[in-house]
């Protein structure tokens, strides 16, 4: 059943009185209503949240004030463990979708939140996740306006899956795309790469390595707005999530039919992440990020874009890491710290730690 934020008067919210989710909470009756009220409406509730319509209603004129095109995206979040240093599945579910909107030049406005819950999950844990979604939504300047809950039998899902769908509006005049990179363009990132991937691997606890690495999970709409103000000619932006920096660079090189060369010495990676990766035989260029974007700008706007990034709290370690080149279309190379050149290809499957 759906829960929706609309303009209706306040009503009293139901409460859940048992400690854990059971199949009854997915049954469509009072138990389900209580769960939705107690956990989700309670956390997401702005004044407009209350009655459970089947859809959120958003005025078109309010949208049109922000720009001239609607941006619409969806993403599902499954992560093990659900809570990790620097965030949890809730922060991830909001940041991921907000960032997917923002990298297209959109101002993120509304989110939906659909959850699939495995029976047996603690209600208090769900409250915690809902609260962290709510707090992240506030930070990102978006409202969670509609949603859905399902409860499935033990074993049918891994504790909690969340899907968020987002709507934003693209500012007039902004035109960003993976096919727009041109030889000579500069490539920038907004900070240290690989933190999220390393934090998740470390938090899984199935290795004896201890690390203090935290996820970089953050909503990037503010940083992106600052970049677009400083560098209106920005060609391309993408958040370097699954597959990391290497994957994004390959995507843009292929779509724009250009070559890309980055410089290993200029590519910012935390010492701990480097060491962590080397011990496990992983490559940090492929580690996931949740608060990092790759930005391609014309060379004459590179300094302005970099300055805008460095001036924003989420871009303090920003760097110009390379350039778009003529040459082998679709090929990404890296000048290594040692002075050699290597190819940075797409990952075939999942990165698997090497034996020795």
């Amino acid at each position, binding site marked *: 059943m759906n829960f929706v934020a609309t303009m209706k008067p306040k009503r009293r919210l139901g409460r859940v009185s048992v400690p854990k989710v059971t199949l009854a909470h997915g049954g469509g009756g009072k138990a389900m209503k209580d769960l939705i009220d107690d956990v989700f409406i309670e956390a997401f509730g702005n004044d407009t949240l209350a009655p459970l319509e089947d859809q959120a209603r958003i005025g078109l004129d309010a949208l049109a004030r922000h720009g001239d095109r609607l941006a619409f995206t969806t993403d599902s979040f499954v992560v093990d463990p659900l809570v990790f240093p620097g965030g949890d599945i809730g922060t991830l579910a909001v940041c991921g979708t907000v960032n997917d909107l923002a990298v297209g030049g959109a101002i993120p406005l509304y989110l939906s939140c659909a959850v699939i819950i495995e029976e047996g999950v603690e209600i208090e844990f769900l409250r915690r996740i809902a609260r962290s979604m709510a707090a992240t939504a506030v930070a990102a300047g978006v409202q969670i306006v509609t949603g859905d809950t399902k409860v499935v039998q033990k074993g049918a899902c891994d504790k909690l899956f969340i899907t968020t769908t987002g709507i934003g509006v693209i500012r007039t005049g902004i035109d960003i795309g993976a096919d727009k990179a041109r030889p000579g363009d500069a490539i920038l990132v907004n900070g240290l790469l690989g933190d999220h991937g390393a934090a998740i691997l470390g938090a899984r606890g199935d290795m004896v390595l201890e690390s203090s690495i935290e996820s970089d999970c953050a909503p990037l709409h503010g940083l992106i707005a600052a970049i677009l103000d400083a560098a209106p000619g920005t060609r391309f932006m993408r958040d370097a999530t699954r597959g990391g920096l290497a994957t994004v660079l390959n995507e843009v090189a292929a779509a724009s039919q250009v070559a890309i060369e980055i410089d290993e010495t200029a590519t910012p990676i935390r010492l701990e992440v480097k060491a962590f990766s080397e011990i496990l035989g992983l490559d940090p260029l492929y580690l996931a990020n949740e608060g990092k974007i790759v930005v391609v700008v014309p060379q004459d706007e590179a300094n302005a874009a970099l300055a805008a990034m460095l001036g924003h709290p989420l871009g303090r370690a920003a760097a110009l890491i390379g350039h778009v080149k003529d040459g082998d279309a679709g090929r990404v190379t890296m000048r290594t710290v040692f002075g050699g050149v290597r190819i940075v290809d797409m990952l075939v499957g999942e990165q698997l730690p090497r*034996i020795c």
Partner: protein
Amino acid sequence: MKYVDEFRDRDKARVLIKEIERLLVTIDIAKQRPIAIMEVCGGHTHSIFRYGLEGMLPKEIELVHGPGCPVCVLPMGRVDDCISIAERPEVIFTTFGDAMRVPGSKKSLLTAKAEGADVRMVYSPMDALALARKHPDRDVVFFGIGFETTMPSTALTILQAERDGIANFSVFCNHITIIPTIKAVLDSPDFQIDGFLGPGHVSMVIGTEPYGFIASYYRRPLVVAGFEPLDILQSIWMVLRQVKDGRADIENQYARIVPEAGNAAALAAVSRVYELREFFEWRGLGSIDHSGVKLRDSYAQFDAERKFAIPGVKIADPKSCQCGEVLKGVIKPWQCKVFGSACTPEVPLGALMVSPEGACAAYYQYGGIKRHVGVA
């Protein structure tokens, strides 16, 4: 000194490459053909590609990527055996990460896992033993794989299991030894290698003495090399110096890690737990005498091969696959008939396309910069 960044210094690299070029001018055969140097160990292959070393070296040096990637050389029949163990309902099958993708005749461990086998990635055999303690009702099997580098840790885990009386732990032993393998390469009729970079971490265990026959009998230089890019450059320089002097010696560039006598405690654990197999099958190289080890009878209770009935079927390498010739340096990866067409990292046909340490996968993934122009 952190023993890391110091060995990745590009200014020192430039100096060393100059020295290598200077040395090459004085070597006569280098004027007729490239000097072929084989790095035996997959870890070296990985570093060479990771840092782009091939492109930095003068063209008179040809690096041949040897048989030292234990994941790559595992034959299909053994992978089938390990899948048959992994698919038993009572088994938790534990393995190092990159062994999961190695294709058997029908599937890989990754596929078996997707089909419901309880396959778990571990970082050490001790993690597998911990799982056995945690799940006394299940049989935990560790996929023992690797050369002398990983052999001692498996042995010590078995000794620990024995001490603690853990009965639900066993090892599917596929450990292999380096010396007979190098000998097989040296004995192959199309052998054409001028010198070797010896495996650093294997040597940390076995020391440098076992390589003596390579210098004395086969008259080839071998330099035990570290894994940082400067280590590799310096080792190449050391091999070239021997070639120039007409010497064949066993030298140790990696002395900060490798004691000449090896690691006595590790060797003791190894000889206590394992004995040599009469022969072991290698993907791409065929059967090599005394190249594998198995658990001694006294540790039979920890031997998954004896605990579970395994099919033990020998499966021939695909006919079109030329891994053996690549391993011996007879052809380069991209000269193989199926390289990049029937054989890719997504669907590897041959062993060398499997692990990122395999020469073909490394070329496919990182390499190719000069190859693109068709240097053969």
